[in-house]
């Protein structure tokens, strides 16, 4: 199922839509046409040992790739495409800022769910200093008490990006986690659910819609993300309670949730913070409770050195500071160290229903 339409989405006018289509086409060309060509060109140039394997180290291959003017031109264009993607989704949001802020105010007046902001939470320095994936203002953008821009940009950018790569357009991330849960632990029906690092809340609302009796909570560090997520959930007529909190110390009681989930959160966290999130999940879960973390299928152990270098573009140029920290993480050990029994842990790929894409999942059930 595709993501639902709602009143908190800014409407793209004729030229906005044309700009969005252009950047999608440009990103598609740069990444699906040119990256394989760059790969093959560098692959031919790299020295090999007797077995035919590339013998150069990561740093040597990185130097070789980054000193190529063709790679630099490609990289500059890819950065330009990413920046223009954000500008193309930002125009309608800025044009409709007043209507969207009124939408937030109206939603807050008589809400089904709730919004609890807490400016005193601990926020990693990098989240204040870096605009992750070049999103203007980053996750912490906060321009006033009704500002929803961070969330509006995040959802609009995500929708456009998903269209471009055809991921999430048929089955959303939350739907994939719910399907995994039904296959891994059949009959499991959670009464209290927490979505960690929920951003604009696109993956929080499907839980409230699917598990109709469940009490659904969601946390994130960004106030602009949370205001938008709250207004978005209200616009969809779905009850979710949003809280400003760090995933490593959410402030909820011990053993107070049946299901804790996250979607693309691991790759936005340092390895220490990923482990901290797993430990917090264990603390929050009731006996028999389940945590499931879904993320992109980026595993350096399955990639050649050259592929690792090419995939590192996001870390160096797209402001994804923890890209390689995620790609080399050991979620199995993190979950076991958090307290989960090895036999009750699943870490591995899980395919989208249409078999076009495989996600990386890290899950555990508390004894």
């Amino acid at each position, binding site marked *: 199922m595709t993501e639902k339409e709602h009143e908190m989405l800014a409407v793209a006018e*004729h*030229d906005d839509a*044309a*700009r969005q*289509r*252009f*950047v999608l*086409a*440009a990103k598609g060309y740069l990444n699906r046409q040119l990256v394989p060509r760059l790969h093959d060109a560098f692959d031919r140039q790299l020295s090999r040992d007797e077995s035919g394997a590339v013998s150069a180290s*990561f*740093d040597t291959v*990185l130097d070789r790739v*980054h000193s190529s*003017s063709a790679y*630099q*031109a490609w*990289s*500059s*264009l890819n950065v*330009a*495409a990413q920046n*223009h993607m954000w500008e193309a989704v930002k125009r309608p949001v800025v044009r409709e800022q007043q209507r969207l802020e009124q939408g937030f105010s109206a939603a807050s007046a008589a809400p089904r769910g709730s919004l609890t902001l807490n400016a005193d939470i601990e926020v990693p320095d990098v989240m204040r200093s870096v605009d992750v994936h070049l999103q203007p203002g980053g996750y912490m953008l906060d321009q006033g008490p009704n500002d929803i821009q961070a969330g509006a940009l995040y959802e609009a950018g995500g929708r456009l990006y998903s269209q471009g790569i055809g991921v999430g357009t048929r089955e959303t991330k939350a739907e994939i986690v719910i399907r995994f849960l039904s296959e891994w632990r059949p009959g499991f029906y959670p009464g209290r659910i927490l979505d960690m690092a929920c951003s604009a809340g696109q993956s929080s609302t499907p839980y409230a819609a699917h598990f109709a009796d469940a009490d659904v909570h969601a946390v994130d560090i960004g106030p602009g993300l949370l205001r938008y997520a709250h207004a978005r959930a209200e616009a969809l007529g779905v009850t979710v309670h949003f809280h400003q909190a760090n995933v490593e110390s959410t402030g909820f009681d011990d053993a107070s949730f049946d299901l804790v989930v996250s979607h693309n959160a691991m790759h936005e966290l340092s390895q220490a913070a990923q482990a901290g999130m797993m430990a917090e999940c264990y603390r929050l879960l009731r006996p028999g409770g389940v945590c499931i973390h879904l993320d992109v299928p980026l595993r350096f152990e399955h990639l050649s050195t050259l592929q690792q270098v090419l995939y*590192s573009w996001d870390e*160096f140029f797209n402001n994804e500071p923890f890209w*390689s*920290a995620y790609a080399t993480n050991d979620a199995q050990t993190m979950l076991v160290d958090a307290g989960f029994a090895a036999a009750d842990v699943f870490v591995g790929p899980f395919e989208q229903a249409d078999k076009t894409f495989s996600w990386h999942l890290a899950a555990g059930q508390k004894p």
Partner: protein
Amino acid sequence: MPVKPPSHDQSSERLTKIIFALAEEVAVLSERLLTQQKLLERKGLLEPGEVQNYEVSDAERAERLGLHSELIERVLAALKDEIDNLEDAS
């Protein structure tokens, strides 16, 4: 953790930004023209060759110069931003 590579050549970087912005403007313009052409054809208001042979009035010429000025400003935004953010030499 690998070390962040040195910045790419600044002149090329600037040129790339300008060219990408220009390409986007061309793409938007093409779509707008296509939309209008389809509308006019659907309404039976446009015959083949009419656009090619159209004569521009003085008022229209001024309007078009204004449009070009706005286009140039958007295309050269990268350079303008760089200049605006130049460190004060003094």
